[in-house]
Every structure is written in structure tokens, then in C-alpha cells.
């Protein structure tokens, strides 16, 4: 899909200081699976899939997903964050072809 790398992040509509919130994100990505030739042999190529997802909050890495080809195409990832201070939360996706995709959201208190 030409939308590769589009990212959506979702946090609760209302956050109070100190809340442990759950964040969901989705990235459009093919997460290429292993292909086999007619003889059933694995085709040796550099498959394009996301292998690292990094969650940064207030400039610090708070969670990292190491991912494999057993993760779905257009995957979502969810995690928890303790919202201690207002600030930026960023999720970056790195794939095996050296691409980096990113989405971020400002955590603000209501």
C-alpha cells in the first residue's frame, strides 16, 4: 500500500497527572512474510519488516518492542505509560530496509 509509514496514535481523551494510561498505535506496513520458491525453499532476500518499535516519553525510552515477521501486516501496538508530566510521547518504527516511521502526541493534563 502506498500509505506505508502512516502512523496513528491514540491516548485517552482526558488524562490526569499520575495516571497510568494505555496508548495504542497503528502503522501501515507490509511486514513482509517469508516467501518460498516452488520447491519450498525459502527465498533469500532482505525482507522488509519492522524490527524495532521505540516508545519515547519526555525524551526517555520507556518501552521497546523487538518484532519479527510473526507480527501482522499493518500492526497495532499497545503499551502503558505513567503520565507524570506534560510532554511529548513518540513512537518510532524502524524496519529492515532502514526506514523509520514516527508518530507523536502531546500528553496534556485536563
Amino acid at each position, binding site marked *: 500500500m502506498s500509505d506505508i*509509514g*502512516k*502512523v*496513528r*496514535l*491514540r*491516548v*485517552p*481523551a*482526558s488524562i490526569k497527572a499520575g495516571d*497510568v494510561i*494505555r496508548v*495504542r498505535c497503528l*502503522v501501515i506496513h507490509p511486514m513482509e*512474510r*517469508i516467501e518460498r520458491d516452488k520447491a519450498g525453499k*525459502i527465498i533469500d532476500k532482505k525482507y522488509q519488516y519492522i*524490527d*524495532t518499535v521505540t516508545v519515547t*516519553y519526555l525524551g*526517555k*525510552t*520507556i*518501552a*521497546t*518492542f*523487538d*518484532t*519479527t*515477521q*510473526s*507480527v*501482522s*501486516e*499493518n*500492526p*497495532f*501496538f*499497545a*503499551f*502503558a*505509560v*505513567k503520565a*507524570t508530566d506534560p510532554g511529548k510521547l513518540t513512537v518510532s518504527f*524502524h*524496519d*529492515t530496509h*532502514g*526506514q*523509520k*516511521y*514516527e*508518530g*507523536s*502526541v*502531546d500528553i496534556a493534563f485536563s
Partner: protein
Amino acid sequence: MRQGHDTGLTRRAALGALGTVGVAVSLGGVVTLGGAAPAAAQALGQNEPLEAALKRVFGGRPMKDGSGMIKLDIPLIAENGAVVPVGVEVNAPMTPQSYVKHIYIVADKNRIPIVTRVALTPASGQAYMGANIRLGETTDVRAIVEQSDGTLLALTREVKVTVGGCGG
């Protein structure tokens, strides 16, 4: 009560709590990285049998029964093995002294059994992860939890994968 149904309720409840208005949405951008992927990540997803994967990653360390602490949300029947939502919640403290360091998802019969490893920190506030995973066929799925003191806990659940009826 059916576990499969639990999953739906839990996710819906979670989304409900998030609310439907004022949801923060952000657009992603594409940035090209200079280097290749980290070596550790490349090593994680290997085409190997389950036993080899467990030995490689956990080195034969003992695993405790995690049924008291781990909540594994995954449909018992997956209509479509290409997209199976999984959620893991661990009832354990997340303090600098003691926290859940890693949550692994392992699908026994997948060609690449190690699906993901999530590294958490006390700043997570709660040991929780969710993702969409692929299941090649009906298989046991394990949530393996590694605590900061090195303790390993595991919980297994079978997921049945149906293939198409007459196709669609």
C-alpha cells in the same frame, strides 16, 4: 464465561475508557535511517523450531507457572490467522526495585516462533502490551514474562485458527 468473549469485552472496555472524543491523533512521517537494523532484533526472529528458539533466548532457565500473575487476552478461536490481537497484562509492581523487564510472545507452531519481545521500564507504570500477531495454524501461544530479578513466568493458551469455509 468464555475467554474469547472476555477479550472482546476487555478491549471494548479499554477503548470506552479512552473515550471517543478528543482523541489525540497524529500523523506519521518517513525518515530514512543511515544504518541497518540493530543486530539484536535481527537475531530475535529466526526460522527455527520452538525448542531451539526457547533454548536460544532463555538458555534453558526454569519458568514458573504464571497463571496467577499473567493475564493473556487472545481469542480462543481466530477466524483469520493473519491478524490475531493479543494483549498481556502482568499483575506485578513496576518500581525501580522490582519491575517486569520483558514480555515475550511465542507462537509454538509458527515458523518464526518468537513473535515479539517487549522491553519495559518502571516508567511504563504497568506491565502491559498489545499487538496484532500472525498464527500459521492452530497453536499454543505463550506469554513469557521476565522480571528484573531474572525470574521467568509463563502462561500458555491454545488458539484455534480456522481457514476459509468456501473461501470468503
